[in-house]
């Protein structure tokens, strides 16, 4: 009798110990290092989701790379939507702070990106809810850098940080 009770207690203790180690470590890893996410929508075609709603790409989101809010022009990033904080959106960085952007569909023709902000656009212009609608976004909303497509297997690739050729900047900060 005493022996079986001892066994249960030891098992319970081991479980609790494992639980309180594994859960915080896993949560911290997913919040701070990397996680995966399914991309929905057509705003980043043809780079992401070229097949439309038939097959959604699954991407690797790298939090560690943006821990100091360092992004380059051309990176594909995920950020908290400025219009709906419950949603994350995935777009390409077109311009950094200090750059002057020639907008496509924004109320102002040219916008200078303020300090601490970035200008993001989806690759599929016209079908994208991006900075052309809501203006420059604060870097504090940056969530992660999408580095690779993981699924479907035939679309396994590293996502390149290139600016679409038609979106070259009017003037960038480094020109001064």
């Amino acid at each position, binding site marked *: 009798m005493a022996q079986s009770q001892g066994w249960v207690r030891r098992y319970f203790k081991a479980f609790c110990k494992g639980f*309180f*180690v594994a*859960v*915080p*470590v896993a*949560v*911290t*890893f997913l*919040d*701070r290092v990397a996680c995966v996410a399914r991309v929905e929508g057509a705003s980043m075609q043809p780079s992401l989701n070229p097949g439309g709603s038939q097959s959604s790409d699954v991407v690797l989101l790298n939090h560690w790379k943006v821990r*100091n*809010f360092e992004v380059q022009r051309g990176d594909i990033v995920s*950020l*908290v*939507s*400025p*219009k*709906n*904080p*419950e949603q994350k959106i995935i777009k390409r960085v077109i311009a950094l702070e200090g750059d002057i952007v020639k907008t496509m569909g924004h109320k102002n023709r040219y916008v200078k990106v*303020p*300090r*601490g*902000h970035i200008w993001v656009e989806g690759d599929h212009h016209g079908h994208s809810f991006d900075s052309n609608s809501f203006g420059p*976004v*604060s*870097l*504090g*909303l*940056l969530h992660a850098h999408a580095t690779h497509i993981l699924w479907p297997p035939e679309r396994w690739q590293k996502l390149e940080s290139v600016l679409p050729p038609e979106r070259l900047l009017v003037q960038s900060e480094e020109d001064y």
Partner: protein
Amino acid sequence: MLRGVLGKTFRLVGYTIQYGCIAHCAFEYVGGVLMCSGPSMEPTIQNSDIVFAENLSRHFYGIQRGDIVVAKSPSDPKSNICKRVIGLEGDKILTSSPAGFFKSHSYVPKGHVWLEGDNLQNSTDSRYYGPVPYGLIRGRIFLKIWPLNDFGFLRDSPNSHRFSDE
């Protein structure tokens, strides 16, 4: 000898990672202790006061008008600002000076909040940089723990005239 040292080092690293992760989870999902600096929230919060902030309201979208929140600064994501929520999305905000003859209003856009410091004379807030996206809010301050003579829940805004009537 070497194996003993190696074993101890691994154990130390293991504990550091474990407690670091527990600390991250606590700060991110529950709350933490913060020190506020600057005069923009006087008299409610003075310079170098220590307060307790909870992060549950942010995750459950329970931030309300009149709450004091800590948020990432819109122009510098590495620093935090501590202000009071004057308006939520859809609220009408008076943007001109109250003493002026022509009053101009604007509406807080969807997904944003309007923040102002209690010390209106000496605060850089939404009157300067515009409405702040909700996603920048990190937590809600609800308890002051230092200095001890001012311990307790935080007072209501001294600027109740700034809140919209609707």
